[in-house]
């Protein structure tokens, strides 16, 4: 016979266990009862856990467990807040776990476009081009074309040909010809100066120049 036939007393017990973070007992209670889990108490619990003065990993783990025990979703606004803090503070695996466990939808990710673009920028700055396509796959939000072109330029100017090639593969966005021509122009200028620049000798420039043509597949139009 169900120990908690009275929904009110059941709800009270659930609320108390959530508030006191006694999740093992909550798990046992939920499993042993056929009563409806009070959604409001659980949502309040999510809110409380998210704002606890604990490390993110501890808060995230509590949220995860609460979801696992109750199967009640925290609601869009709370998920938005949670996703934002994951995107701002945490690496991708936690975002994957978050999406997987809380069924984060594409429209919700769209509301986080600004934060997601900042995450792209951070990945590109750190040459993590594979993470770029994973984030795209995960959120279904593409990195802005202008951002990608900016990073193509940055990579090529700094001899980061692997990153250029990698980002090109991951985003499928072609580099603008005029951008490559701009770099050729700068290379020619630096080579003719015969003065080492940025720690690199003119010989290095020659090597880069050759590689630039090779990896971009675009020839120097300014060459006689």
């Amino acid at each position, binding site marked *: 016979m169900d120990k908690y036939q009275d929904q009110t007393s059941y709800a009270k017990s659930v609320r108390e266990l959530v508030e006191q973070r006694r999740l093992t007992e909550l798990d046992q209670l939920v499993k042993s009862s056929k009563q409806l889990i009070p959604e409001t108490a659980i949502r309040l619990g999510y809110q409380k856990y998210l704002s606890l003065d604990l490390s993110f*990993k501890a808060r995230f783990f509590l949220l995860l467990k609460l979801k696992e025990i109750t199967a009640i979703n925290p609601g869009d606004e709370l998920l938005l807040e949670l996703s934002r803090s994951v995107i701002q503070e945490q*690496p991708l*695996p936690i975002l994957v*776990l978050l999406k997987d466990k809380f069924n984060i939808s594409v429209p919700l990710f769209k509301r986080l476009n600004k934060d997601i673009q900042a995450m792209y920028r951070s990945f590109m700055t750190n*040459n993590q*081009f*594979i993470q770029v396509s994973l984030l795209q796959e995960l959120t279904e939000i593409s990195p802005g074309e202008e951002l990608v072109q900016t990073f193509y330029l940055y990579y090529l100017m700094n001899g980061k040909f*692997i990153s250029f090639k*990698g980002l090109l593969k991951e985003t499928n966005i072609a580099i603008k010809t005029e951008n490559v021509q701009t770099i050729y122009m700068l290379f020619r200028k630096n080579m003719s100066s015969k003065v080492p620049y940025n720690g*690199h000798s003119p010989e290095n420039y020659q090597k880069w120049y050759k590689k630039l043509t090779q990896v971009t597949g675009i020839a120097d139009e300014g060459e006689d």
Partner: protein
Amino acid sequence: MMLQEQLGRTQSSDKAEILKRLFNPRQQQLPSLPTLFGELERLLDNPFSSNRKIADLVKKDPSLVSKIMQLSNSALYGKRQEVKQFENAITYLGTSTLQNLVLQICMVRLFPFNNSDLPEFDAATFWKHALATAFYSELLAKMFKFPQSDEFYLGGLMHDLGKIMLYQYHPDRYEEAILLQLEEQISGISAEIKIFGVDHTDIGVFLAQAWQFSPTIQSIISNHHSQFSNNTSLPVAIVSLGNSLANSYGMGLPWDQPRDLALHKLPVWEWIIQNQPQLDLDPEQVISELSQHSSDIEQSVSILLTH
């Protein structure tokens, strides 16, 4: 003559032959660990060595002492109170950790990363990955209550040694291998074999043998990319997981980031759960637990790389 062409003509040669050709030990091209490290190992093997004796030896290299002091006071090594005397640092860290730190510092000195042809493969990126893998491997070993967790640390630190060798001795070919990996969407191991005839795990073992590292460390280096099977050893599984965690938490080499970020679904978990059922493992808890050490690892790398 292109190395690839040379290898094409020596298809019947075994790995050892290719490795000799790549690094030619007769010309003493292989890096060697400083004598201080060997002396320290001997001293630490002797149970009657006092901290004073150990300290006297290490103090012969003041910059080594300074780095060990900085590291033992850093967040990564679980600083609880400031350690001021080197002798106290030995007690605080323990001799195994001390040995690992000395090795770590010696290795950073041994591979200066002064080749600007491959800017993505810089000292900070490489050592961050090595240190993160070492740190996670040791932490996992401790979490699972395995003895000799420091050996897992060493295995993590050394697992990609072959990559620095390729970079240091054959940077152009190595870049070619990476571009091939990206172009053809193949694994790094396959690309290295196509270009060099051997991969970084073979090279790492080659060096670990020359440096007389234990069979466990050699096995970790050799198998950290292998499929899991009944023959997989626990240290290999743990370091392989440490490696995946480091990569997924954004502390991998740019071209080695995993394609699948669902860390909790990695085959290694299944292997551990099957082979170590007493652990009652919850992958999600471990992933959440280990997700916030990036800045501590960065701090240690910065200490290691500061001159």
